[in-house]
């Protein structure tokens, strides 16, 4: 069965919060110094795109928006077996909130043309909003299935199970459709030998690099700069403060006997 043509997967490079590098004293992150990684949620989206291709055919294009260094996660995506990659990189994108980001990505998708499925991670670990996927679906005027943990395609429709409070729900939607993938989806498998070899070649050969990694700016995608960056974003962060540690009044108990007596008091 091979009826899908184009599968897009949207991924993002984020600071590694597990690492202390680049963490300022006030808790904010210096992105230039921080260790960088593929957004952990996007690993599920990548696996979902690879599964879609394996079962239903098509070509996968991984798309990211970010500074030039974000090319690192495109290498990673190629190692895992995506076919093409796009880096949207432009100074005027800096400071974009989800509204502006979804506008830029929508314009990128329009530039690329037709597609059957778009996969996104549920959210990113640096923004934590889980908004960009749905906003792209809105701008493209297509249906969406969020919190997806499993899917199949039958009779040109996607049947997907999504997480809901205390359970799950199965939905059937026509294509094209945007899917945000929950972290209860299958974990990303190992890199492929073919992919690893390809990335090695790309590092050596400029021509090959240009074939597999396309770098776009906002003129290429015909985006209006007024809708991008800080001045195009309807939200603004007006203040940040460090969350104070809660005072340490922990009563250390010697053992279970003491604890069970305390519990008896608490639950009275």
């Amino acid at each position, binding site marked *: 069965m091979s009826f899908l043509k184009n599968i897009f997967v949207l991924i993002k490079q984020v600071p590694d919060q597990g690492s202390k590098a680049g963490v300022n004293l006030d808790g*904010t992150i210096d992105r230039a110094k921080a260790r960088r990684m593929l957004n952990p949620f996007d690993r599920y989206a990548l696996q979902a795109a690879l599964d879609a291709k394996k079962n239903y055919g098509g070509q996968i294009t991984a798309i990211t928006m970010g500074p030039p260094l974000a090319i690192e996660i495109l290498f990673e995506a190629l190692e895992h077996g995506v076919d093409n990659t796009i880096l949207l990189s432009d100074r005027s994108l800096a400071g974009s909130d*989800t509204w502006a980001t979804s506008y830029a990505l929508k314009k990128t998708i329009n530039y690329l043309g037709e597609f059957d499925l778009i996969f996104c991670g549920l959210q990113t670990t640096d923004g934590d909003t889980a908004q960009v996927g*749905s906003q792209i679906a809105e701008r493209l005027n297509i249906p969406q299935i969020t919190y997806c943990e499993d899917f199949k395609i039958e009779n040109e429709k996607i049947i997907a199970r999504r997480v809901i409070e205390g359970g799950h729900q199965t939905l059937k939607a026509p294509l094209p459709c945007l899917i945000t993938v929950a972290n209860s989806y299958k974990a990303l498998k190992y890199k492929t030998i073919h992919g690893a070899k390809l990335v090695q070649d790309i590092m050596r050969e400029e021509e090959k690099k240009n074939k597999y990694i396309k770098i776009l700016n906002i003129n290429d995608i015909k985006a209006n700069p007024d809708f991008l960056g800080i*001045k195009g974003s309807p939200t603004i962060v007006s203040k940040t403060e460090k969350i104070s540690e809660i005072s340490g009044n922990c009563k250390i108990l010697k053992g279970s006997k003491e604890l069970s007596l305390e519990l008896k008091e608490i639950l009275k």
Partner: protein
Amino acid sequence: MKEILVLAEHVDNKLSPITFELLGAARSLADKLQARVACFLLGYNIKDQIQALFSAGADRVYIAEHPELKDYRTLPYNKIISDYISSLEIKPHIFLIGATTTGRDLAPRLACKFNSGLTADCTELDIGEFDYNSKTDIKRSGLYKDCLYAIRPSFGESLKARILGPWNNPQMATIRPGIMLPIKPIENKQGEIIEVPINLTKNDLEIEIIESFREINNEIDLSSAEIIIEGGYGLANAQGFDLLRELAGCFNNASLGATRKVIDEGWMPYKYQIGQTGKTVRPKLLIACGVSGAIQQRIGIQNAGCIVAINKDACAPIFRFAHYGIIGDLYHVIPELIKELKEF
């Protein structure tokens, strides 16, 4: 008069707790702004819930009833709400939606339609001024009054960010469940009911719900559980939860919970996840077993009435905010504790 709008959520025509939490939050903002509280209710055969919305703080209810609206679906809900709000000359000042799997699915699309700023998963709200002074963004600079302060944890919950979007109404936010307090219900409170026009096209109805499944009887919803036994990575394996299940059995109606690391390892399903990317809970008692208490975990459990930590690492951050602690191997401590509890 300014309006603060909230979205009602319901399951099987029973209003969800988040609805009352949003109304409570909206009420306290409305009192600061001398605004009214309105509630958008979409469903089918659901008019009998309107009184409960008035009692919980709504002054006005917008109702859309149609068989196709019985259960939440992205497109028809999106269409009806956005059509209606777009048709208003004066838009609601603020629009609050739950940060649930429904609200987080819908709110971003609505915000796109209104060109509104949307802040995700807020844990605090306030009203205040904003003096915007930007050299690069001159057009929008100026003093803004009566802004929604949407406050949320960020950067792995180590920071609190105050996010504003005063340029377009409605100013929108999704609100983390289990945080805002409902008001004490006012019996027989009256309000205004407004029927909303319903214009659905074939395209709006192209997603079908094949099946919905919710565990109702055998397990309590974590966000409303009174007692939670939470397991962390310190359990070392999935079998550790058998021990926690046994501990939970010593209490009446205790639920299990888990940290993100546990979910990532596949030891427990996602629905048990507590913390930054999971649920926020406020039980009377939470026993954290092998939970380090990293900042991402803390925000999920810090509203618990009493936190008991069992961890062999005396330096684990959880001992900085737990109320009681036992420093020791949970595989020794818990079996003993079970024995003690069973003797009661």
